[in-house]
């Protein structure tokens, strides 16, 4: 199967590329057609091609030659460029092959320095929500630096327990030595799935389905009512459990009758034009297919602050794929995302996401795992939506003196992936001076669902055990509406307490817009 056909299949009919709201249309046309056409914007790579070693290649020629020279040079040497570090043998690099960033000779991700920084203080193990409920799980220290060292021997298999890591990335924030634990886990998991996992096994197929949620969501959302009804047919989830190993206790998320992108197209795209204040919205799968109200809130709030919102074509951020070791799938999606986001960045936009796992993926996991031209640019320009406003607008001033018409108390849970970005307190602090809003932080426990983890039949109980503390704290809290930035945390919060769950952007919309 060639890459293109694979892509077409996964794309759910490429519904994303020809929408009027996409502000990227014009430039895409200019770059798509000819390899020789220089892109009008600096820093924007040509579209539709993988440039494996390029971020390690010094800009060819001098700056006088400009980007045009650089790009055509690269085109001429595509696939044969020597890495600046002298390491990558790019001729051997197959863009579709398993490829965490190839930095040093030998083709393996060299994490030696990270492994050496570990002084075994076990802070990571102490912060691991899985180790807290599962004594079979050896913990992040073993999965990371210790296993990395063991793997140096060719005959050493990856321990199967790596599939029990839920990729919450708490170990990253806990490590005082900045050991790249989650990068090590992602890499080991990718290798395990690639080399040791039986591709016809029920588990592999199940994981592939779970991690490619977007593919199925894109089909289901074509017929949302039918899909929703089908999920409610008695026994539907039991079949899912028996056949595929998907936790039967869970309710499949409802599909919106109109996706965010459909809404965006219908309203005619951006209502505010502003070349000085632009953001490219990475809505992710969930706010597109399931909770478009979050995306709409984002648009209305940002337009209230005078931003021009762009909605570039995009695929899954890759988070569920990393968590299931499906690095090939993730890379394919990352290529599309980087391509389109870099283009938006070239037009002066910063990238914002309303899902904290999406923003973390673009910011941290992308450059850690893949070497795609422009990937560092995307990382540097990506922010979480509320974070971005707190940096660039005087939200405190804006919110001072505002009040929520109907008083409301919220039980706020900070997702693990928000913690990792330093965002665990943002909602509580943003709304603390708004009249009529009570926001209670329900503590630092993990919700336990960790994306696809809690959807697996064999992990369901552990997922609920991890979440038990959060459920208790939510029920103890004043409010009976939950709040969080993460779609799957929201699912778990709802599942465990029956509360309605909102996104901080929706509250911000109610308050200012």
């Amino acid at each position: 199967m060639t890459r293109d056909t694979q892509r077409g299949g996964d794309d759910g009919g490429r519904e994303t590329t020809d929408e009027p709201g996409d502000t990227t249309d014009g430039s895409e046309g200019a770059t798509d057609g000819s390899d020789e056409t220089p892109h009008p914007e600096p820093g924007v790579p040509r579209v539709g091609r993988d440039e494996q070693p390029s971020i390690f290649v010094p800009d060819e020629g001098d700056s006088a030659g400009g980007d045009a020279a650089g790009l055509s040079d690269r085109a001429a040497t595509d696939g044969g460029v020597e890495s600046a570090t002298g390491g990558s043998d790019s001729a051997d690099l197959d863009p579709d092959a398993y490829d965490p960033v190839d930095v040093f000779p030998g083709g393996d991700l060299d994490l030696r320095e990270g492994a050496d920084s570990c002084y075994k203080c076990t802070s990571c193990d102490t912060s691991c929500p899985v180790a807290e409920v599962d004594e079979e799980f050896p913990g992040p220290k073993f999965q990371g630096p210790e296993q990395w060292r063991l793997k140096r021997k060719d005959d050493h298999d990856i321990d199967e327990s790596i599939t029990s890591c839920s990729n919450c990335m708490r170990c990253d924030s806990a490590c005082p030595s900045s050991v790249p634990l989650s990068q090590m886990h992602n890499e080991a998991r990718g290798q395990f799935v690639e080399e040791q996992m039986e591709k016809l096994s029920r588990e592999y197929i199940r994981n592939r389905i779970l991690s490619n949620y977007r593919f199925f969501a894109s089909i289901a959302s074509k017929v949302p009512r039918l899909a929703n009804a089908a999920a409610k047919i008695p026994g539907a989830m039991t079949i899912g459990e028996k056949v595929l190993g998907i936790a039967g206790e869970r309710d499949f998320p409802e599909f919106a009758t109109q996706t965010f992108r459909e809404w965006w197209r219908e309203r005619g795209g951006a209502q505010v034009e502003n070349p000085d204040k632009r953001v490219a919205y990475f809505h992710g799968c969930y706010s597109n297919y399931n909770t478009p109200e979050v995306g709409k809130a984002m648009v209305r709030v940002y337009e209230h602050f005078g931003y021009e919102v762009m909605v570039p074509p995009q695929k899954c951020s890759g988070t569920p794929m990393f968590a299931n070791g499906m690095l090939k799938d993730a890379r394919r999606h990352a290529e599309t995302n980087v391509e389109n986001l870099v283009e938006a960045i070239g037009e002066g936009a910063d990238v914002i996401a309303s899902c904290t796992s999406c923003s973390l993926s673009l910011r941290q996991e992308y450059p850690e795992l893949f070497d795609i031209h422009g990937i560092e640019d995307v990382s540097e320009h990506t922010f979480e939506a509320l974070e971005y406003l707190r940096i660039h607008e005087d939200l405190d001033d804006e919110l001072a003196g505002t009040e929520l018409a109907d008083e409301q108390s919220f039980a706020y849970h900070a997702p693990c992936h928000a913690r990792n970005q330093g965002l665990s307190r943002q909602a509580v602090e943003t709304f603390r001076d708004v009249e009529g809003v009570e926001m209670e932080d329900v503590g630092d426990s993990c919700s336990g669902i960790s994306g696809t983890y809690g959807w697996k039949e064999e992990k369901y109980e552990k997922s609920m055990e991890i979440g038990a503390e959060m459920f208790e704290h939510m029920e103890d809290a004043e409010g009976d509406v939950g709040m969080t930035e993460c779609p799957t945390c929201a699912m778990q919060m709802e599942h465990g307490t029956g509360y309605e769950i909102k996104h901080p952007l929706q509250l911000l919309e109610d308050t200012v817009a």
Partner: protein
Amino acid sequence: MAIDSDVLVVGGGIAAITSAVAAAREGADVRLVSHKSSTLRQASGLIDALGYVPATEPATPLREGPPTAGRELDRDEWPDPEGPLSDPFEGIERLPDSHPYRIVGAEALREGLALFDDLVGDAYRGGHTDRNALVPTFGGSVKPTARYPAAAEAGLASDNRPTLIVGFRSLTEYDARAFAGRLEAAGVPFDVAGAEVEFVEAFRADTKVTRIAKALDHDEEIDGTPAREALAKAVAPHLHDAEDEAGGVERVDRVGFPAFLGDDRGNEVRAELADRLGADVFEIPMGPPSLPGLRLEDRLYDALADAGVRFETGNPVVGIDAAADGRVEAVGVDRKGRETPYAADAFVLATGGLVGKGLDSDRDGVREPVFDLHVDQPTDRYEWFVDDVFGDQPYARFGVRPDERCRPLDADGEVQYENVFAAGGVVGGADVAREKSASGVSLATGVTAGREAATEANE
């Protein structure tokens, strides 16, 4: 646009939290930024103020000649440290002039401890007196400390009730019998026995202590028996293990466990075990991962939120973003690749010492990486250390040198920035490991730096 506050505290440990709360109580709008989860979770949870006054000069002078690694001294040539001190305050005046306690004053330590007592409430003991308590630590020694968790209360070494120390075969870092032996050798005034019991064996060999704590918190069933009952049953047969001086059998009055007796519901777990065993139950602080450290971290961060301090953990402060007229206007925070300026009227640097990465070192020197403050150190690397591992190591005292308001001084002894203050492990001059003074130094400098920063910001 920058993120503004009156006082910005950089760091996340005891010193950072103390200074943030102290500044907030002076009316300042305070923000705290720390890179990683606090190293508090690796700490014992004991609050040491001053346990020993170690000698800084050998009994006989160093060998003549240029300083080299060959500065060999017989360990016997060092006078014994003075201590354990029963009163930390009375030892302060015998510390070197450059010690932070001498610079900020004994009153600052008193205020720091008072603030700590206020923040932790009934979770800690020892606040009723100036005197140090003697707490057994898991190395088998007895440590003088100013404040200790309520969970450790029944284990104080000054108590003379017969004691059982419980260990678990699969918990390899902790050998109960050896521990009990060392306590006896240390001359504790009570009879003590150690016993290994089977309980942890119900879990896998390398189970994390957090897993055991969670099982006890929730009283999970272990092979059909609730965890707390199972643990009590495992310990019960050893309640008569202690021997009195005549060799007779004696029932113990208190039982010590490694510190894993629950997390959120520790009090409940201890009470139930005590009830089932008919003896007081206490925890012995352990090395990392340390539940007493984790519990203290939780407690202090709750207090921080209550004090109205804004805080974020997860992104490092990477340097000064803007400075003018001898003042820092903003620092840069690296938010996953993009540097964002955080402006403030005053800054408190509380990033810790070498372990907390507040100081950075290589073969050429020791640096303070955020503000690039002056760190006092001999230029000759061979003068950084002496051969006696437990001796007066010069590197142990490396750090920034503060004035009496905790403002770091440059190489000439002048204030480096008018509005930058330093607290905790990044401050030099104390050998906290030998003195048992780490928390006290953090509290004393934290309360001073926080208050002074608020004063500076209010001007």
